[in-house]
């Protein structure tokens, strides 16, 4: 069918954790489901636009100030995006992240909250859609409901531009500013991400969709105003998800999905002035439980993400890093037109 017949929506999840990673997805009222963090293999219909916003609200685990004199408390990672279907098999996106980071810091026996807000680095992304239908081919303009149940794949790649302030820093305790790259808004250098997704809507149980997404995010070393050099550890992700269609009302254009995900994340150690930062990086497995509600060409997704397992480097020395969340609340809103 024409990808718009059943209000087929392309929903892009582009979830920046503290460094950032992409997740892309799409779904129609009877087509494959789209999780919150795991990218699906859908591309935008040719000539159609997508407006997208996502909030990743993070509450960090807090410890005694004797153990950590400075502690990240909560971060809000907003993502605003626009996508366009250049071809049925090629979509392009522009994302503008907006971050609010809060850190509670010790000062002379009391504490204060350092808060930084602003737009982070812009990101450009392209998604190439493929499918297996009696052979591997590019995603065609039209797909029937049965076609949507074929294996679909995407290859995606993106680059972030260092448009945000990488040198923003707290000057309350030190007028020169404290060097803390993870509390800045930008990375100072471009980042590169590339990934692969696979999606399969079950032929004998069309309400169920299986999704897999793997990606790699590459950071480059940046020299800050202080003269310090810092490189965030590269990230590798392997996400899987199941989306189950609980309810549909074709007449009113409503669909409700239940979403469950298992997300694996490996983070390399950061490097500061050429030296590995030993208390950074590690491995985490997250669980995500959520739902997505569709109404015509709108989609609202809500979910909770928690670490199920972790193996962090010098874990006891880490606070406010991936794997050290109390929870993440994820909300997305998308509009296709």
């Amino acid at each position, binding site marked *: *069918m*024409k990808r*718009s*017949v059943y209000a087929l929506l392309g929903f892009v999840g582009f979830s920046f954790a503290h460094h950032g990673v992409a997740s892309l997805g799409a779904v129609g009222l009877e087509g494959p489901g789209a999780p919150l963090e795991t990218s699906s293999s859908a591309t935008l219909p040719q000539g159609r636009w997508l407006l997208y916003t996502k909030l990743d609200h993070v509450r960090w685990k807090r410890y005694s100030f004797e153990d950590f004199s400075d502690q990240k408390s909560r971060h809000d990672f907003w993502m605003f995006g626009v996508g366009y279907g250049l071809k049925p098999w090629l979509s392009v996106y522009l994302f503008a992240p907006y971050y609010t980071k809060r850190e509670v810091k010790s000062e002379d026996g009391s504490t204060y909250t350092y808060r930084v807000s602003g737009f982070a680095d812009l990101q450009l992304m392209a998604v190439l859609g493929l499918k297996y*239908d*009696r052979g591997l081919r590019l995603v*065609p*303009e*039209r*797909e*029937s*409901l*049965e*076609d949507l*149940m074929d294996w679909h794949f995407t290859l995606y790649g993106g680059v972030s531009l260092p448009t945000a302030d990488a040198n923003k820093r707290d000057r309350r305790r030190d007028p020169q500013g404290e060097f803390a790259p993870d509390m800045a808004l930008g990375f100072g250098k471009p980042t590169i991400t590339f990934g692969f997704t696979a999606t399969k809507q079950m*032929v004998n149980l069309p309400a169920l969709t299986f999704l897999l997404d793997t990606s790699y995010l590459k950071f480059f070393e940046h020299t800050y105003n202080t003269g310090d050099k810092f490189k965030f550890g590269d990230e590798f992700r392997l996400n899987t998800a199941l989306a189950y269609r609980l309810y549909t009302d074709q007449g009113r254009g409503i669909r409700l999905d239940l979403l469950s995900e298992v997300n694996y994340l490996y983070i390399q150690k950061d490097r500061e002035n050429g030296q590995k930062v030993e208390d950074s990086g590690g491995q985490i497995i997250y669980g995500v439980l959520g739902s997505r509600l569709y109404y015509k060409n709108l989609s609202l997704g809500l979910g909770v993400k928690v670490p199920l397992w972790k193996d962090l480097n010098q874990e006891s020395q880490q606070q406010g890093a991936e794997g050290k969340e109390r929870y993440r609340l994820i909300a997305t809103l998308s509009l296709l037109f």
Partner: protein
Amino acid sequence: MFLVLFLMAHALAHDLWIEKKDNSYILYYGHTKPKEGEERFLAYNPEKVIKFECYDEGGRLKEARVERSYPSKLYGQCAVVYGLFSSGYWTKTPEGTKNLPRDRVGNPIESWVSYESVKRVERWPEDPSKPLTQDLEVVLEGRPSELSVGKKFTLRVYYGGKPLKDALVSYKGKTVGATDSEGRVNLRIREEGLQVISASFRERADGTKADYIIRTTTLLFELKL
């Protein structure tokens, strides 16, 4: 799009089908799966039957005796039986939908003329991908021997002997897709038995008697394992 679906829903509200009984084929109009309060068979004026034809395996029109009555009957040994029917003009008014042209009712809201056809395949023609008529028609692309439950196959929709884009295609009453620029759509046979595949599209009419012409066709064939 919603208007199209609305009109299609009207056009598809009644089914046209052919049943085989002894050595005859009977053309019925009504509801193959009647809901509560609906009649399975709706009597029709035999003059509404525009074509009732018999084709051989070569796709050639074959002589057959047609009894133009209600229900119309065709006697013959056919590979394919084809019927074309028009339920006439329909006009939506504040008082309801009437089986009359636009210029014959007061306060018309919208109107259409409906043509329905049905092609029942007893034995697949030697070239099943070739349309038999110039009317709206669904043909099979590929070999009939490859049809099986659970496997995808490709259909093409023709109108005027040319592939038709944007025709809505339904399988057993459920819309499953629309044809591409080559008139193609992919389906999957979900169960053995009688396969009912329909295609519809609309085109603009003169605006005097009707705003639109809605054409619907149904392909019927049996799949036995």
